[in-house]
């Protein structure tokens, strides 16, 4: 693994409505709070309306050149089409984190770290399917601690409109649940 947290180029992809864009945005916001350089490039247009959605989030210690890239250090994929599309684009040694309840055919690549998390089932257990993306984010941060948990919680406060601030505690629990699931899988953080 070439990286040492100096640069993280991540793609998050899934169905519209799974919280793909807000996951990436929360991460970018947290990066900004830590005075890092960040960029968040969403797919936009009709595909946002229920189709597939994705965003590229880059967090770097240095000025970011291209916000649009084709190869990624990490990928978070939340549906099968995104798995098929982006698994080949993870750099060797990179991470592919996926929602294992939705994706039945994960990539067969062996040169990357593949981690499946049943985040949807976990979210159901927490009685709020919308926090699925935060469970995934928690898991991702356990694998790639590119920003601190404190920054993420602060970022959530900023990203969530005030009328949803009563949901902050459940989002926090979701993040913690995600982290715990990775720990239970005994996967070592990659740095």
């Amino acid at each position: 693994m070439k990286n040492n947290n100096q640069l993280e180029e991540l793609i998050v992809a899934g169905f519209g409505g799974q919280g793909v864009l807000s996951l990436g945005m929360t991460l970018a916001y947290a990066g900004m709070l830590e005075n890092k350089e960040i960029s968040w490039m969403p797919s936009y247009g009709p595909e946002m309306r229920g189709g597939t959605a994705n965003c590229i989030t880059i967090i770097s210690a240095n000025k970011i050149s291209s916000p649009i890239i084709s190869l990624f250090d990490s990928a978070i994929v939340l549906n099968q089409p995104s798995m098929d599309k982006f698994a080949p684009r993870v750099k060797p040694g990179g991470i592919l984190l996926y929602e294992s309840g939705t994706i039945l055919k994960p990539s067969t690549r062996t040169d990357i770290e593949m981690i499946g998390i049943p985040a949807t089932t976990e979210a159901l257990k927490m009685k709020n399917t919308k926090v699925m993306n935060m469970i995934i984010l928690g898991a991702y941060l356990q694998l790639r601690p590119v920003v601190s948990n404190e920054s993420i919680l602060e970022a959530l406060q900023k990203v969530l409109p005030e009328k949803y601030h009563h949901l902050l505690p459940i989002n926090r629990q979701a993040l913690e649940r995600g982290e715990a699931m990775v720990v239970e899988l005994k996967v070592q953080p990659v740095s």
Partner: protein
Amino acid sequence: MAEFKLMKGNEAMAEAAILAGCDAYFGYPITPQSEVLEYLAREMPKHNRIVMQAESEVASINMVYGAAGAGFRTMTSSSSPGISLMQEGISYIAGAELPCLIVNVNRAGPGLGTIQPGQGDYFQSVKGGGHGDYKMIVLAPASVQEMADFVYLGFDLADKYRNPVLLLSDGAIGQMMEKVEFKPYTRPVVDKSTWATTGKPKSRNRNYITSLFIQPERMEVHNLKLEEKFKQIRENEVRFEEINTTDADYLFVAYGLSARICQKAMDIAREKGINIGLLRPITLYPYPYQRLQELASQVKMMLSVELNSGQMVEDVRLGVNGKVPVEFYGRMGGMMPTPEEIVHHLETLIQYHHVN
């Protein structure tokens, strides 16, 4: 310490417009820049400014004409098809010498095209677009920060030269989020009382805004006056950024989003031992011909990378004037070249020119 915000390019531009003291915004929804109208519809009334969703882009640009003619700091924004509709109004604004800011969040065309990013409006922006002899100052931001910064700059240049200024962005810069700092801004004092139509007091002659000079002799005098202004602009307002040109054997020339992609391509190429630099024109009009001419005696080849079929490359060739080969690489239709793809093309070209 600077205070940063995380914003979309479109939103940063809209916020900067408010901070720049924009009195009025007239617009019409079109992807990928509807956030501008949405943002301003929410925020402008809080500052007692005018924001209006017009019935068309044709109406918006003419509302801009009216408000700018009355001496107010005015702007509109749209994306490619909408900007095409505005061309008549822009020509009138340039002819009547009204200051205003027009933002084009370029999408791919022609026709309805696609809502994905493009740079196919380069010719329209810098070579005319509307009818008659006129030029707009064209600023090309390459980051969310510049989307904000160039709003101040654009308004100031528009006032300085009494000329429309175009901020030529694209769907990606408009839609992406980066951190942005809204720097303190002091608005230059500009006296518009000699021409703005605010109602004629007894103490002065009437002011009228027009682009009509029916006698050819008077029209030519007006044309020459405009040309003199454009000459001043060419002499004083050329802006560009250079990266790694000191030791460069080759040169990328690219603006906006493609310049960002080229930066990554440059990093990859340099790791492979190819000494390539980047010239990023910030003003597309006036164009940095002079600097390109100078660099032509240093580098062996230039590669213009654009999200179109090859438009700016013509200006690069004008600057280079045959001194070194000027090549082109572009993608269209809202597709974007990857840095690796550009490097691959660069390597092929280097080999080709080496062989010859």
